[in-house]
Structures are given as C-alpha cells and as structure tokens.
C-alpha cells in the first residue's frame, strides 16, 4: 500500500467505531439540539455544574482560560456589517460532540480517552497523564484541564459547599483532562434499572442534566439505534446520517430545506450531536 493510495482512499482505511457491521448495539447515545428553540439562557450550563461537580475557577482562572464549563453557550452576531443586530444574536450550546471517530482519542499517548460500546467518548481520569494532546486535537475545544487541585483550592468547595457534590461523579484532581460525558452516571443508573427489569432502556428513561433543566426543551437525548426514540426519528427526518462526512440532502440544488446539520462534519469526526438550524422570519 503506497502512501498515495492511503491518502487517496483514506476513508476505506480509516478506523471507525465500532468496526463491525452492527453499529453500537443495543445503545448509541446521541443528541439533537433545536437552535430555534434555544434562547441562550444558560440554564443547561448551570445544571451541568450542579450535576457533574464542575469547579468554579473564579475571575483569575477564567481570565487565564481555565473555565471548566463542559457545556458553554456560544454567542454569535451577524457578520453583514449592519449597525444594529436587527435579527438578534445566535446562540449555540457547545459541549463534547461524542465523535464516532474522535480526533481526541487517536492522539492520547496512554489511551485514557476512548470509545465506549455505547458510542460515548469516555475519559479515564486515573489513566490520564495530562499531556493535553486530546484538547489540542479537539476541533470543538470542549476539553477542560484541571490546572489545579480544585478540591483543595480555597473557595472552590469550602465547607458545606462540598456537601453538594454528586457522589455518583468522580471529583477530579490536578493534572487530568475532563469533558462532557453525556451524563454517563445517569445512563448507567438507567441501564442497570432496565437490566433489572430484563429490558432495554426506553426513550425518556434517562435525561441528561442539561436536557432536564432546559426551559425550552431544546435538547433531546436518546438512543440512536432505537427506532422508537425521539433522536432516532429526528435524525431520520432530517436526513442526517451518523457515518457520513457530507449529507446527501446538502447536495440538493439550492441547499436543503431540512434544518439538521452537524458542526465540522467535513473534518470527519462523525459527531453524535445534530443541531437544528435557527429559523428567522423572512417577512420582517
């Protein structure tokens, strides 16, 4: 195999998760986020702090780019040079996209971040050596590094505040990388409950913390290989396919009328989060 052939036919050689024909059976966790419903209110982000033991880094830490918000709301303005943003702003909830072919995974020297059979990009804290290569290689910049030992840092979790920590979620120490887990602790509980009842998780059995809080119900979360799940139906209706780096519908002349898209799809990380485009009234 020549290098030329490798480069030209890269998609054939490329390693996919998973490698066999049955993609993620019985679970493949995925999301869809409706940007026309999302108001940019930040409730999801705060809910994530509460659920996942995220440290507050303070003004200094934030200034140094050390914020730990697994879920952040990006705000964009129109770029057409008008004096006033008369079509409002654009908000985008951004967190780990749980890529199927995650760029962060391939660069980890110790395999601390890898793919679960459920299709989630996981982070093994006690294997992580803090090289931060994963963060450098993540196209979405959603990995967060523990520059300090937050549990012992002043005013992060002072007495009483520490009682709020979620016992289902590890409190991370200095020198490890962390990121959105799709609330894996909730998924695990739901999986065990379902297993005890001898069944699979039904749609709605498990909600992520951000989804549960979101006042506009902009976030849907579920099992992409369950035809009964809302995310499955949404992805299907929007004709967004997980294992494509360009969707067929986008090749239509004049562009698609469907709102579903994935960010940086063309980079081939095969993200598990589909966004639905924001809509703006044409009549005004």
């Amino acid at each position, binding site marked *: 195999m020549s290098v030329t052939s490798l480069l030209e036919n890269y998609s054939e050689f490329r390693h996919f998760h998973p490698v066999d024909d049955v993609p993620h059976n019985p679970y493949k966790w995925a999301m869809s986020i409706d940007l026309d419903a999302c108001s*940019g209110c930040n409730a999801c982000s705060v809910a994530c702090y509460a659920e996942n033991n995220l440290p507050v880094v303070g003004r200094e830490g934030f200034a140094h780019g050390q914020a730990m918000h697994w879920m952040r709301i990006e705000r964009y303005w129109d770029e057409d040079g008008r004096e006033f943003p008369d079509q409002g702003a*654009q908000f985008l909830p951004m967190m780990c996209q749980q890529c199927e072919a995650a760029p962060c995974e391939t660069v980890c020297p110790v395999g601390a971040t890898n793919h679960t059979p459920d299709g989630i990009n996981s982070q093994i804290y006690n294997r992580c050596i803090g090289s931060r290569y994963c963060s450098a290689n993540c196209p979405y910049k959603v990995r967060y590094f523990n520059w300090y030992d937050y549990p012992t840092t002043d005013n992060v979790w002072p007495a009483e505040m*520490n009682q709020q920590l979620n016992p289902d979620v590890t409190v991370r120490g200095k020198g490890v990388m962390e990121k959105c887990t799709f609330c894996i602790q909730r998924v695990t509980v739901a999986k065990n409950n379902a297993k005890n009842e001898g069944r699979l998780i039904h749609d709605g059995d498990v909600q992520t913390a951000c989804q549960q809080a979101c*006042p506009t119900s902009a976030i849907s979360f579920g099992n992409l290989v369950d035809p009964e799940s809302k995310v499955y139906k949404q992805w299907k209706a929007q004709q967004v396919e997980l294992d494509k780096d360009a969707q067929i519908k986008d090749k239509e002349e004049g562009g698609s009328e469907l709102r579903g898209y994935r960010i940086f799809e063309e980079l081939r990380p095969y993200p598990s989060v589909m966004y639905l485009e924001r809509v703006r009234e044409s009549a005004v």
Partner: protein
Amino acid sequence: MNSGSIKQLKKPLAIRLGEQTVLAKSLVMAEHPFDRRDFLKVLGWGGAAVALSGCGNGSVEDGKETVVSYVETNDYMIPSISVYFNSTCTQCDAGCSITGRIREGRVLKLEGNPDSTINRGKTCGLGQAGVQHHYNPDRVREPLLRTGDSGEAITWEKAYALIAEKMKDVSGEEIAFLSGGVSGHLKVLLGNYLDSFRSKNHFVYEAIAPAVMRAANKKSYGVEMPRFNISKAKVVLSFGADFLGAWVSPVHFSQQYAQFRKGDEDGQRGVLVQIESKMTLTGANADRWLVVRPGTEGILALGIINALGAAGLRLSGDVAGAVKGYDKARVSKDTGVSAEQIDKIVALLKARTPSLVLAGSAAEGYAHGSQNAAAINLLNQVLGNVGKTVEAAEVVPFPQMAPTTGNTAALKKLNDGLAAGKYKVLFSYAANPVFTAPGAMKFKDNLAKAGFKVVFAHYLDETALQADLVLPLDSALEDWGTQVPEYLATCAQINIQQPLMEKLHANTDGKGTRGMGDILLTLLKQRRAEEYKGFADYYAYLRGALLKNKVALGGHKVDDDTFWNETLSKGIIKLEGHVSALSSRSGTAGLSLPSPAAIDAQYPLQLIPSVNASLRDGRHTNQPWLQESPDPLTTIVWDSWVEIHPRKAAELGIEEGDIVEVTGKNGSVKVQAYLFPGIHPDAISIPLGRGHEALGRYAKGYGVNPFQILDAVFDKETGELALHETRVKVSKTGSRVIVVKDEGPVGGRQMGKKIAARLPSDKVKLSEEI
C-alpha cells in the same frame, strides 16, 4: 476530595419529622377559646369566597413512585439510592415547583417538578443554583447583636426577649416592617403580627418589579396580572419585556416560547418582534430587533395604531382621536424607527392573528412609564387580543394568602418616614435596600434614624450590616412554607415548601438558624399567646392550617394523614380558582405622551441599568455558579461592564477594556467598557446585581453597583422609580483591563464556518418536523 469531610447526618430526616407529626396530631380545635372567624384568620383562610373543590388532585398513587412524602418512616433511606422530595423554588417569585434529589440525607440537585403547570419539570439557571444558597459558606449562623461598633453572638432566647422589650411601648405607627413580596401563610403571620400592634406599616418592596405594568394592566384589563398566551400568538410584539430572561415567570414563558416557535397548533411559526433600547435575552432571540430611542416606546405604539388605522383597521372614535397626531413621519422622527419598518410591522400584525403585545422595561423605566404602558396596552385592545392572547388568570380563592407584590413606591414611603424619624422599630426581611435603593434616596443615612433595626438574614448583606439585631434564617431548602405565585399558568395553585434536608446550622446552644415562619410564630405568641399556643412550631401551624381547610383543598375523600402526606408528596395544591372576565375598556382617557426629551448637554447619555436573569437585584450574587455563568449577550463573568454602541465608543475614543467613569448627578462608578452593538447610541447600560460591599466572598468586591448612581425620578402616576431616567456622561480614566469573558478573541464571528446556522422561515416546513 476527602469524602470523610462530608458531614454525615446524625439523625435522618424522618425521625425528626416523626416527632413533629406527633406534635401536629395533638392539635385539637376545642383548645382554642376564640371564635371561628378569628380562627380562620389565624390560619390564613380569612375572607375566602367559597369552599372549592380541587382541580387535578388525584391520589398519591398517581404520582411518581420515587416521590415520597417527608413524613414516611426512614425505611427509604438506602445508602446510595436517591430519594426525591417536592418543594418550591424561592430563588425568584415565579413559583416554579422543584424536586430535590436527596442522598444520605444531603440535597444534591434540584430539578423541576413535571406536575407544575408553571414550569413543567424545567428550571432556569438561577433555580439550579438554589443549592448554593443552602450550602453557602457565608450564611449567618447565629443571632448577632450590635453593641456600638462590634457585634456579639447571642441566643435566640435573648433575641426574642430583646424584641419583646423593644416592642413594649411602641405604637403601631412607630413600627415599620419592610419585606420583599410575600404570600401564603408567611404573609398571614406577618399580617397578624402587625395587626397585633394595629400597625399598617408593612412596606413591600421589590427593587425590580413590574409595578407600573401591573397598574397599567389594572386600568386596561381590570386585573394586574392577566395570563399572557405566548404560545397561542402568531406575532409577539414586545416592548422590552424580557420574558425569556427575568420577566415575571421566565421558565413558564420559555416553554410557551418554544411552542410559539414550533407553531404547535397549525405549524405556523410565531414571529417575535422586540422593541427596546438595549438588547435583552429576549431581544437576542427576536426575528426583528428594533432599537428605539429610550422612552419613546409609547409613541411608537400609538404610531403603529395610527398606521393600522390607515391600513384599514377600524378604530373607534376615541382611539382614532388619541392617535391622530401620530403619523408615520413624526413617529419615525421621534423614535428612530423607520417608516418602512412601521409598515412591515403593520402588515405583519394585520396578516397574522392573534398577536400579543407586551409592555416590559418601556413601562418600568420612565417618568411617563404608565403612559407608555397604557399606549402599549391600547395596541393590544385595538388588535383584539384581549380575551384571546391576554386572558383572565385564575385567582386563588383565599385573599389572605394571595401574594402581596412589591414596588419601589413602598420604599420611597418608608424612606420618607425614616427621614422624618418616625420609626422606633424597623424589621427587614427578604430585601436589601441599602444595596438596591437609588443613591439619591440616601437610604442608608435615613435608616440610621430608626430606633432599633432587626434584620432577618441569610447573609450579612449591606442592610444586615446596619442592623442592631441580625436574625439568621434557615435556607429555603430547610424551611417550611406555602406560597401563592403571582403569575398563575393554568390552575390556581398553592405551592408547598418543605425541608429537603436537616438544618445545616442547627439550633445548638440556643443559637443556629430558624425559619421565618417559626420566628413570626414566636413573635406572635409574645402578643397573642392564647390564639397561637396550640402550635408548637410553624410546621404544626401549617399542618393545622391546611387540614382545617382540607375539603376546600381537594381532600374531602381522605383522612387527615393521607391528605397531608399527599400534599407534601405532590408539593402543589391545585385549586379551582375564580376567573373574572377582563374588562376591555380602551384606555385612551388621559393618554398623553411627552415628546422625546432633548439631550442634556452636561449628561448626554441615558443610563439603562439592565437586569440579568441570574443576578437580578443582586440578592443571589454570592452563589458562585451565577458569578461564573456568562452573561448571555456579552459572555462576561465575575465583573460589571458598561455597554456602549461601537459608533458612540468611536466618537469617545473608547475601546473594549478601557476603564471609564460613568458620572451622573448622584455619583459615579468606574467600570470596564464593552462595545456592544445591541444598544441605542445615546444610551449605555450597566447590569444590576454586582458591586456588593458585603454579602459574602463570591460577591464582595466584584463589579460596581449602578443602583448607587440612580437619580430619584419616579413614574408620575404610580410613584414607581423610573429606572431608566438617569442621565450620565462617560469619560476615560486612562487605565485598561482585559475583559474576562467567554467569547474568543474573534468576538462573535463564525469566520465563514457553519457553526451556528440559520435558515429563513420560508424555506423550512416546521409542521413536518418531529
């Protein structure tokens, strides 16, 4: 994390509750020698119009399995298994119902309770941070008495004795009780306590309340707070009402908004037009955001009515008369909104019905705020929205428990009384006027003239620091209560607040925190021992009160214990309330709007103090998640900023990060500049809520407090503080900082990538979506 440091509860919740259940059972009516009417008043059911049956109250079995009543035995306390208790969020007054997740006796997380028609299982970020109010390291833990310049911790016994002594010879006029908005049984007890002195001096103050809108609604619709059906509207025209942010009932409106966008009924997506001088979160979500010259919103509303008339809408004689002078050319000149834009709005309003017009900061902000609000409400009437998207809300049938809403007019009255040295004893609860009163009122100086100042406090805030006696309160997650929300979504309802865990700072050595209800009950016993002696504590009182009215509360078929357990397990009592039809008097009488004010040469800019959904009036600023939660529009954290339009900034030579001095007639603040396109160039905006000199480690010393430089200008009709009427000038100080914010170095640009994408509405078929 050293898990050993996590405090294990010595006593599970239910044991303590077992004791209380016993206490409650010993409550026998016959012990009370006074008559039934008095008794009803004691319990808060006084003045009830009718006994009503419940609406939507099933049995406990209908509820979630995981929702267990607080009074069950402690069998359910299985290590590592969470249990869930229902309660009510008190982070703002919207009255969302919450479910607390509790494990090993600790409350870990709050979720929305899906059974509430207000929030339907959802919460806002502020609500999420409720646990940080409870676990806050800066809570006051013992009663504090000031002696000269120093304070000492005292016991509750001593504190109560001191109050009894101070209250001995005062008359009703010499007492002042300041509080935030109150409802439910707390309001009943508070009222009864003041009654026992024949005092009418209950001052209900909220620093940022929609008080002008309430008054205007009362005039136009006959009620202060009708129901706004955003989801039914095809067009929402909002004059600065930030209903997705901090306005009235944001979680409820956010859900309605999502339905409105999807066009739930017919697949036609609702259109949002937001008209304001400074972009709010709602404005950022608008299809069309129109910047208007500050204060001219009413003129624009009348201009739209005029244009609707010209476009063929039939106007009644008085309306046509009222809007006669407001032709497009003049309106456009006054407001800065182009004639073409007015035409577009008119066409939209005509083509898509029903619409809904909302009056927000336009009403609250100006000396002619009432007139603005009246003009905006008139637009609703002209469009025929009253009865469609503006509907009568249900009213809780127990007036004694109905919410008393606050305003700044009350503060002004109190302030005048204080200045005149009228009060010997002052109580303050759920308000922090030393922080929130406009600087021009000199509230702090006047407060010093009160004889004895008792402040009920969670933190040592700016007001508590001025107190003679500080009484530490239980957190909202430790306390009992009932609450009636001002804005009711569908059913009338009473919300139940119950402890989600043991007190963190228990009453050891006679110190520790107490619940506000318990304190009031003790104070009432000092006055009317006979009437209240049957109630060992507030829990017993509440239980007694609710059981007394069991039938009207939907419990006619069940015994007392079942009813009580069901009530606690649901966390909501749904009622059949009254609905009285809205009146639709078109309010043209006395409608007169001033022409836009000329620009003041000395203070050329209008200061808009903005209300952030998380920080609001600043009472929760010591919750670090809120400090670190970026402002949605600027993405700034942990600090204040002043928003300046890029054009104005260029004129003044100001760049992002310049520390500028904002000076008005009543002082100045120095704050970092942020160039913001969503603001009128003749206005600048500083968010409220930061700039604390006290409160706690996460609040003190971060940012500036614009309340301190506000001029004391009031709405002419209601006497409300006109928040946007302060004129200022801006000058550079020469120093610079790097603004600490979440957005990257390229600001809000996507650099040609498809990141946050957008489609025009004529391209999508929402009705075919899932």
